């Protein structure tokens, strides 16, 4: 029997799946040249037209599905694909050469497309090189239709499948049927790839970016996709399967038990309302937020708008997304965070030694003013819905906040002079995720309407630990006394300045942390949608005075371990009802 192997990748969509491998092979269609008699050349040319017509139908159909299931802004690559398909220049060239060379349509079409692809891939710009993927995606579809083939498609995956692929073409990822497909594993792709976003929208566990995946699995064999930790287990031992089965069963039981909490208001047992909101990345997730009973959206990450199309989305595209989101959540709040992108994501030739300490997020926006203003205009226009707030990431200094406000005012004035409506009382807030912003929070509180503590980055910067570095990641701990102390500082400064304070890192959804955070006085907790029912259950069990006692005591400890041990004891003693979900 072959030995169990654990392959590592990027955790792109949460959950556990145990199922049978269904390999999606994107093998290129083989094309052969055949001489064609002159009398049949007209038919050859007509065949090409029909294949293109058929392909257009297919792409339009896929485009429709994306619009419905994921969101309109996301299917724009298909618009470009359809234009590539209908490119008159190409069709005419192919037809001319069919007649002059007297050869079959698929051969000539393949030749012509390859010439274009060749030119593109020799470009020095990554963006243009990557368009080869689109062109080949389209061309393979045309060839398939010319030859009357049925390509393996993920549509054919039988029930209980784990889709394994080198890469799924974007047009293919959208065809995944969640009834049959339990999980996805791929060699390429990251958290913001088409496949990742589709998987999260469908709530299918996915692990992407697994090197050498295809050489290690066979069609039909059983594998485990651990989308929580980014693992794929091949040839799982029976004890491993048991472990994951038990974990799955437990998760399902807990989910069932927690389901009633989706509907209940987010209040402590003694009646204090705490906003329990959702962190989301794209429009379709708003549905999950509502399903799990989120109060509002505490963090709408806008980076995917940029990354999905590898370029700046226009003001109109952005407006459509922000507006749809605001409408969907009304009257509950939607907090939109401006682009939190590294300079290297925007400028392909920009490199730096320390990206986390480098030119990113607000630092890029303040320099690339037009880019920033375009986003602010789109957000402000959507704010007519009266439930949008703006949040700025990676603030480290007072001057940054001042400069942001100047630019925001410029945009507001421009809109006013054009008689464009927006919410003049729109709240603005900052992410507190650098130690500097936390330490300076009492001065910053006078400038904004709210703080949202980004506990992941705050921990990383406070402890000077890159959690992605396996050698030191054990030093990364949200419960470190230095982090807890900074959180207290920020909450106190906020409240002294009469503004509200939220927290939107992983800590927010951690049931052990909730009594502590509530005791420190936090007003809002924002987390991934699926964590909400559990957080509400915890919240509805605890009481303010006891949490305040717990918070006071927790601040006395010296290490993260001591803090966690104390919190466990405190929960056991005061709120035994929530021990089962910790």
């Amino acid at each position, binding site marked *: 029997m072959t030995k169990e192997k654990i392959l590592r990748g990027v955790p792109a969509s949460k959950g556990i799946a145990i199922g049978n491998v269904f390999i999606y092979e994107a093998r290129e269609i083989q094309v052969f040249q055949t001489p064609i008699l002159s009398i049949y050349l007209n038919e050859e040319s007509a065949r090409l037209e029909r294949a293109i017509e058929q392909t257009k139908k297919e792409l339009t159909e896929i485009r429709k599905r994306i619009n419905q299931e994921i969101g309109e802004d996301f299917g724009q690559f298909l618009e*470009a694909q359809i234009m590539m398909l209908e490119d008159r*220049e190409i069709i005419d060239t192919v037809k001319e050469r069919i007649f002059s060379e007297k050869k079959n349509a698929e051969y000539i079409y393949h030749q012509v497309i390859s010439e274009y692809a060749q030119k593109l891939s020799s470009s020095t710009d990554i963006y243009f090189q990557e*368009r080869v993927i689109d062109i080949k995606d389209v061309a393979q579809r045309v060839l398939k239709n010319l030859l009357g083939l049925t390509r393996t498609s993920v549509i054919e995956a039988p029930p209980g499948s784990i889709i394994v692929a080198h890469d799924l073409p974007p047009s293919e990822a959208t065809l995944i049927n969640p009834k049959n497909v339990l999980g996805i594993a791929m060699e390429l792709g990251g958290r913001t790839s088409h496949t990742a976003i589709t998987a999260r929208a469908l709530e299918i566990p996915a692990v992407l970016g697994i090197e050498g995946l295809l050489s290690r699995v066979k069609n039909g064999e059983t594998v485990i996709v651990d989308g929580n930790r980014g693992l794929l287990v091949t040839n799982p031992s029976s004890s491993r399967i048991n472990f994951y089965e038990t974990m799955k069963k437990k998760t399902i039981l807990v989910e069932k038990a927690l389901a009633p909490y989706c509907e209940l208001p987010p209040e402590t047992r003694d009646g204090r309302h705490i906003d329990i909101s959702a962190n989301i990345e794209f429009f379709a997730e708003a549905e999950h937020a509502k399903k799990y009973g989120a109060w509002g959206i505490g963090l709408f990450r806008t980076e995917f708008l940029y990354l999905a199309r590898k370029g700046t989305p226009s003001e109109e595209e952005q407006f459509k997304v922000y507006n749809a989101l605001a409408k969907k959540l009304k009257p509950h709040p939607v907090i939109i965070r401006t682009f939190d992108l590294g300079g290297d994501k925007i400028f392909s030739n920009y490199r730096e030694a320390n990206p986390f300490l480098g030119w990113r997020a607000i630092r890029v926006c303040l320099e690339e003013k037009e880019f920033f203003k375009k986003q602010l205009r789109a957000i402000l226009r959507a704010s007519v819905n009266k439930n949008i707030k703006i949040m700025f990431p990676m603030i480290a200094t007072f001057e940054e906040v001042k400069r942001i406000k100047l630019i925001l005012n410029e945009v507001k004035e421009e809109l006013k002079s054009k008689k464009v409506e927006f919410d003049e009382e729109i709240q603005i807030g900052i992410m507190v995720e650098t130690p500097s912003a936390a330490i300076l929070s009492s001065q910053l509180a006078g400038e904004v309407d709210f703080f949202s503590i980004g506990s992941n980055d705050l921990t990383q910067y406070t402890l000077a630990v890159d959690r992605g570095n396996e050698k030191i990641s054990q030093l990364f701990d949200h419960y470190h006394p230095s982090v807890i102390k900074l959180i207290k500082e920020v909450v106190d400064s906020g409240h002294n300045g009469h503004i509200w304070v939220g927290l939107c890192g992983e800590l927010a959804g951690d049931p052990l942390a909730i009594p502590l955070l509530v005791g420190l006085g936090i007003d809002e907790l924002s987390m991934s949608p699926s964590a909400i029912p559990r957080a509400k259950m915890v919240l509805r069990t605890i009481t303010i005075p006891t949490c305040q006692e717990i918070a006071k005591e927790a601040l006395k400890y010296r290490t993260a371990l001591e803090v966690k041990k104390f919190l466990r004891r405190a929960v056991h003693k005061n709120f035994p009802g929530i021990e089962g979900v910790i």
Partner: protein
Amino acid sequence: MIKETITILNENGLHALPASRFVKLAEKFTSKVEIIKDGIKVSGKSIMGILTLACEKGAKVTLICNGKDEKEAFNALKKILKGQD
């Protein structure tokens, strides 16, 4: 015929989306539209042709419009290249 060298100021260069806007607009005119970059000439009504030029922001291209409505075509298309559409 109108012929002029233009620096591409559209913020992403002629990426797929601006390129498709360019082609859609070019198709509305009867004039022949061509773009030349580094000595390579492509039809302005072909998205694949334009993409193969790999026009980044700051690249210099020559826009040629030839036909009855060349003036209107030229002015409208120039705007896309300059990111003013």
